[in-house]
C-alpha cells in the first residue's frame, strides 16, 4: 500500500469516528446558529487531528504535506456531509492569500492559526453589482489619504460575509488608467466601522451570500496585500494558490447511484422506471460523462504524484458536472411525478433532488459562469481569439458605463 493509500484510510477512519457527531444525520434540521457552532467545532477537531491546513507550511500551523494529500482528504470528507461549508472560501482562497502576501508576518501567523482552528472566518470580496465575471471592472474605491486608505463602495455575492471576521478585497485605487492597472488588493476587518453586511436570500431559500457596503472604511497601508496598482495580478495569483481541490463529478448533487435507486423504486406505466429506455439512456450518458470526469481527476492526481503538472482538462469539471446535475435533477423530479412536488427546506443538494435542482443555477454562476469557463477553455487552452473588448486599453473612467 502506498503512502497515499494509507493516508486515505487514515482520513476515512478519522472521518468515520467523528461522523456520529458532525455527519449529516447528526446535523439534520439544525438551525444555522447551531450549525455554524458545530462547523467551528468540526474545524477545531480537524485541526487537533492534523487534518487542517494539510498542504500548508507547518510554521503556519499546517501539516506540510502535498496538495495530493489535501485532495484525498477532501474526497473522503465530501461523502459525510460535514459542516465545512463555512470554511471553503476562508481556507480555500482568502487565508492562503494572507499567508502569502500579508506584510506583518507575525500577525499573519496568528490569523492563519485562528482560521485553521475555526475561531475566525475570512471572506473574499471580489464581485460587485456592476461586475461579477468582469473582475477588473470593479468600482469600489480605495483612496489614499497619505498614511492609509479609505474604502467606499459595494460588494455583492460575498459568501458567508455575515459570519466573517476578515475579508480580502480588491478595489480601484486609480480610475484614470486602464481597468486592470488601477486595482489594489487589501485585507479588511469586517467588524470595522463603516462595514455593513446584508444577507441576500437566494432562490433556493438559503442566504449564504451577502451584499457588503463600505462607507469611509479606514485601512492602514499595512493592510495592503499587493503593490499599488498591482491588485489584478495578485488576485489572479490567489486563484492559483489553492488550485488543486477535490472536485465532484456529480457537480455537488446526488450521485448516479442515487438516481439508479430512484429509477428502481418508481414506476412508469406499471413497470419499474429503470426498464424504460428514456431513463436508461439518461443514466448511461450521465454516468459516462461523470466517469470521464472522475478519470480526469484520477489522472491529474497520478501526475501530481509523479511530480508533473496536471493537464488543463482538469478545468472543465465544474462546467460539465453542474450542468449535468441540473438536468438529471429535473429528470429525477419528473420521475417522481406528483410525489416530486414536496420541498424539504432542510435537505442537502447532495442527497435531495429538489434541493439539488433549486440550487443548481447558483452552481452554474458562482466561481465562474459557464460562459466564462467556455471562454477560458477556448482562449487559454485552444488558442482561440479573445472576445471583442471595447474597454481594452481605455482609462477606466472613460469606459461608457
Amino acid at each position: 500500500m502506498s503512502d497515499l493509500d494509507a493516508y486515505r484510510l487514515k482520513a476515512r477512519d478519522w472521518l468515520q469516528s467523528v461522523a456520529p457527531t458532525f455527519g449529516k444525520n447528526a446535523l439534520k434540521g439544525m438551525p444555522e446558529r447551531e450549525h455554524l457552532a458545530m462547523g467551528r467545532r468540526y474545524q477545531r477537531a480537524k485541526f487537533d487531528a492534523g487534518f487542517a491546513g494539510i498542504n500548508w507550511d507547518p510554521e503556519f500551523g499546517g501539516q506540510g504535506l502535498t496538495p495530493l494529500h489535501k485532495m484525498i482528504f477532501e474526497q473522503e470528507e465530501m461523502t459525510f456531509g460535514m459542516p465545512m461549508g463555512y470554511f471553503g472560501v476562508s481556507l480555500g482562497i482568502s487565508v492562503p492569500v494572507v499567508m502569502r502576501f500579508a506584510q506583518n508576518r507575525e500577525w499573519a501567523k496568528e490569523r492563519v492559526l485562528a482560521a485553521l482552528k475555526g475561531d475566525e472566518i475570512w471572506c473574499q470580496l471580489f464581485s460587485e453589482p456592476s461586475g461579477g465575471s468582469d473582475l477588473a471592472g470593479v468600482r469600489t474605491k480605495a483612496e489614499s489619504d497619505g498614511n492609509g486608505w479609505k474604502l467606499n463602495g459595494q460588494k455583492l455575492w460575498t459568501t458567508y460575509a455575515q459570519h466573517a471576521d476578515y475579508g480580502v478585497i480588491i478595489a480601484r485605487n486609480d480610475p484614470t488608467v486602464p481597468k486592470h492597472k488601477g486595482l489594489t488588493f487589501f485585507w479588511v476587518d469586517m467588524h470595522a466601522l463603516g462595514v455593513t453586511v446584508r444577507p441576500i436570500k437566494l432562490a433556493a431559500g438559503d442566504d449564504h451570500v451577502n451584499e457588503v457596503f463600505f462607507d469611509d472604511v479606514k485601512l492602514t497601508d499595512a493592510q495592503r496585500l499587493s503593490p499599488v496598482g498591482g491588485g489584478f495580478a495578485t488576485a489572479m495569483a490567489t486563484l492559483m494558490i489553492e488550485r488543486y481541490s477535490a472536485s465532484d463529478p456529480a457537480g455537488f448533487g446526488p450521485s448516479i447511484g442515487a438516481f439508479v435507486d430512484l429509477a428502481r423504486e418508481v414506476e412508469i406505466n406499471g413497470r419499474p422506471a429503470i426498464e424504460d429506455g428514456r431513463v436508461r439512456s439518461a443514466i448511461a450518458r450521465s454516468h459516462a460523462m461523470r466517469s470521464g470526469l472522475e478519470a480526469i481527476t484520477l489522472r491529474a492526481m497520478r501526475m501530481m504524484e509523479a511530480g508533473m503538472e496536471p493537464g488543463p482538462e482538469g478545468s472543465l469539471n465544474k462546467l460539465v458536472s453542474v450542468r449535468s446535475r441540473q438536468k438529471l435533477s429535473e429528470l429525477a423530479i419528473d420521475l417522481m411525478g406528483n410525489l416530486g412536488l414536496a420541498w424539504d427546506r432542510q435537505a442537502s443538494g447532495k442527497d435531495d433532488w429538489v434541493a439539488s435542482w433549486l440550487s443548481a443555477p447558483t452552481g452554474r454562476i458562482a466561481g465562474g459562469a459557464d460562459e466564462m469557463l467556455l471562454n477560458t477553455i477556448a482562449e487559454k487552452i485552444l488558442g482561440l481569439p479573445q472576445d471583442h473588448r471595447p474597454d481594452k486599453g481605455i482609462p477606466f473612467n472613460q469606459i461608457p458605463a
Partner: protein
Amino acid sequence: MSILYDEAQQAIASESRRVLDARSDPSRLLTLLERTGAFDETFWRTAVEQGWMALALPEAYGGLGLGLVELGLVAQAIGAATAGAPFLTTNYGAAQILLASGNAALQARWLPLLASGEAVGTVAFAEGTAPLPPGPECVIAGERLSGRKRGVTAGLRADFAVVWCRDQDRPALALVELDVASRQAIDSFDNSRLYADLIFADAPATPLLEGDAAPAVALDVLVRMAVVTAHEQVGGAEALMFIARDYANTRKAFGQPIGAFQSVKHRIAELYTLIEIARANCIHAASREGQADFIAAAAAARLSATEAYDAAARDAVQIHGGIGVTWESGLHLHMRRARSLAIEQGNMLFWEDLLVDELVKAAA
C-alpha cells in the same frame, strides 16, 4: 486506475501519428468513398510495416506482446487520419477469440499470419439490428455453418470470420474461412470499411467455443474491440476539433476571426470538453482490462467517444460554413467515419443498455 502513459507508449503515439501524417492523402480517401470493395493499400502497408498488426499479439506468435493501451494509441492516430482500412480492430477481435478458444492448431495457423499482416480476420456477431443477439439465427451443425451476417466490417477482404452462432440451443463461436461465394458487397457511405453481408449455406466451419463460455468470450471481445474503436473515435474527434479551431482562427468575417465570436468559440470549447471526457474514459478503460468493472469502463468510453465524434462532425462542418459541405473539403470523411464507427462494435442503444445493466448489478 487511470494510468499515465510511459515513455514507450508516448513514443508509439507520436510515431504512429507522424507516419500517418506523412503518408495520408485525403484525395486518395475521397476516391475510395466511391469505390466498393477497395481500401487504402498504402495505409495497410504502413500499418503492417510499423508492426501495428503484431502489437497486441503474444510474442509466441510473432506479436509484440503489448496490450489495449498501446493498441488504443495507434487506433487514435488511425482515427485522426480517417485511415482507409478497418483491419486493426477486426484483426484484434479475431485474434482475441482465437486466444480465448484454447484451440492450439488454429492459433498456430492464424495468429502468425495476423501478426505479419498476411491474413485479415474479422468477427461477425451482429444479426439484424442487434450487435450481439442472445439467440443468434446462424447455426452450426457439426462442422457446417448456415445463416447470414449482415454488414460485417472488413467482410469483403477478410480471410476468415469468427461467427457468433448456436449449436442447437447452445450459443457458440465458430471460425469460418471466407470465399468469394460467401460475401456480398454493401455499397456504403464509408466504403473503405469493406462492409459485406456474409452468407453461409453449409459452409465448412470449425467450432471454437460453445455453451456458457461462448457468450462470455463474445462479450469480452466486443468490449475490447469497443475500447479500441473508442480510441479511434477520440482521435477523429480531436483531429476535427483542431481543424475547426484552425479555421476559426484564420477565417475572417465582419472584420475579425470567426473564432472571436462566442457562438463559434464556445462550440469548439464544448467539443474540447466532450473529447477530454472521452479520452479520459478511454485511457481508464484500456487500463481496466480483465477487471470486474471493465465492461462499465468500456461502455463509458464507447458512449462518450461516440458522442464526442458525432458532435465534432456536426460542429466542425457547421463552423466551416459552405466550404464544410463540399466534397473536396474532406470534412465528410470524418462525418462518415463518425457514424460508421458508431455502429461497428454496437450502437449507442446497445451500450447504454449494457452500462445500465452493469450499474444496476453494482447497486443490487
